[in-house]
């Protein structure tokens, strides 16, 4: 698959995979929490939380990237604190690219999980409670398995979005080959020069190939889950 890719392009590809993988993985727990809060709890900040979750969709990606920069840059309120206390920074690091991708993908993840959560029959959770399962255990043994297809769908959406994320990423962590140059930035770069189309096309095809794999995997998984639940 790496045939015909320059070393820099291979690097961008591997980085995109890494960024998307971690963006998806680390946002899952938070996404679950947010989806749960939105689907099940009623609290004063409900509308606000919902807005915040959706914000990265609503705002142009550049603005989101800019806001990330303001918050998680070295000088940003959160970024400075992270640096002072933990010596950790997202700024101009691949972790920052992952953060940007995660933030941009978050609304998709949360919506998918939320829809799945709302479809869970609460009577099954009640049944688990009468069998001695505490709230947490009910969640772990009933709710979570039942929303697995939704979780998977959300994760696939998030991964796909992370693979394609460009605007927020480049605004937040710029384009540093080997550190923050993902496939979309490499593609963008090609498109900026006359005659770069062929190079861009090559990378686009690589993206598409990866997406095809990821989608096929997730389809297969969710079909298996559905078949098991239907008792086939």
């Amino acid at each position: 698959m790496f045939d015909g890719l320059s070393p820099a392009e291979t690097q961008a590809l591997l980085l995109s995979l890494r960024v998307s993988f971690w963006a998806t993985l680390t946002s899952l727990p938070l996404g679950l929490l947010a989806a749960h809060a939105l689907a099940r709890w009623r609290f004063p900040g409900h509308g606000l939380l919902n807005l915040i979750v959706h914000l990265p969709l609503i705002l142009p990606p550049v603005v989101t990237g800019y806001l990330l920069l303001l918050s998680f840059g070295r000088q940003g309120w959160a970024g400075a604190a992270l640096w002072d206390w933990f010596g950790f920074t997202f700024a101009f690091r691949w972790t920052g690219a992952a953060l940007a991708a995660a933030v941009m993908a978050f609304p998709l993840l949360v919506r998918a999980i939320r829809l799945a959560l709302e479809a869970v029959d609460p009577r099954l959770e009640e049944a688990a409670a009468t069998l001695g399962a505490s709230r947490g255990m009910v969640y772990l043994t009933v709710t979570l398995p039942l929303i697995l297809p939704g979780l998977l769908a959300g994760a696939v959406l998030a991964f796909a979005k992370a693979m394609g994320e460009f605007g927020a990423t480049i605004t937040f962590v710029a384009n540093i080959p080997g550190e923050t140059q993902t496939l979309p930035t490499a593609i963008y770069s090609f498109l900026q020069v006359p005659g770069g189309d062929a190079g861009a096309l090559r990378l686009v095809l690589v993206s598409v190939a990866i997406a095809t794999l990821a989608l096929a995997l997730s389809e297969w998984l969710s079909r298996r889950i559905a078949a098991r639940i239907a008792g086939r």
Partner: protein
Amino acid sequence: MTLEIRLSHSLPGFRLEVDLTAPPGLTCLFGRSGSGKTTVINAVAGLLRPDRAEILLDNEPLHHLPPHRRRIGYVFQDARLFPHLTVRGNLGYAARIRRRRPPGFDRIVALLGLAALLDRRPGALSGGERQRVAIGRALLSEPRLILMDEPLAALDEARKAEILPYIETLRDELALPILYVSHSLPEVARLATTIAVIEAGHLVAQGPAADLLSDPQIAPVLGLGDAGAILTARIAAHEGDGLSRLELAAGPLRLPLWLPRVLGAPGQTLRLRIAAQDVILSLSRPEGLSALNILPARVSALHLGSGPGALVRLDLGGQHLLARVTRRSAEALALAPGQPVFAIVKSVAVARDSVGHAVTP
């Protein structure tokens, strides 16, 4: 173990107001569709938060506990199996939560006939199979209180007959209080220690099963034609031709009573329900009859209903028997309180599932 339930709860168009004491044994909640039975049971399980609730199990308040700490085995009216788990996973769920081996797993699987289904998922079960798994799952949760909402309604007679003795065992040997909803009077008569009758959210009668089932006033509420009396008898012997001889303590006398072989060892005490409609009265001791049991008795009360029937309460020297006769016969025989009669009870009319295990009175 006594369960006390005091509830009030309002739903649009429905008000529940219940003050119910369930003494040790099995308490049957009886009432028409929509009368509030499931609502009561849900409140006991903690799945419904009623407007006001006081639920005490042996004086220990349950009402403030979350459902999972009430240690309740609940067989739901709808099976509510976990679709993502196999039958085995459903049955073992409670044990896995408590990180134990499910106690008596094999026994319950055998009892409920689930062995061939263990690796299936609920989606591939028939209606009755699903309900059996639900029963097994609740029983395997090591409960200290069992709630059953029409658990046997979807089951065939043969399966019911296999499961009923097991529920009796739970009631008697494990001494678990059981709150049981059923529309089947034979089931109720066989199992219930106590009966509570609920109508439109209110208790209209509550008391020991033996009393309620032989109370001619209550009989219509329970379903006309199903009145009957509960007798206590001792097993005297199992005889050669498949019959068991029981002895009814009737004052100073011990009246013999032959039934198709019953479970239990000689000396043990049984309770049995004799439906009022299965008793025939005769003024003289009849001869040449196929009925083996002819019990001398005395009419103690006579209730003429509004219909063509009459319910006759008989005194057997301490125990009561009910007989349903036509008003025409009552007049023809000139039945009146105090009158001696003979009660004819067919051995085979005492349905097998009306004979229960020994019960602590």
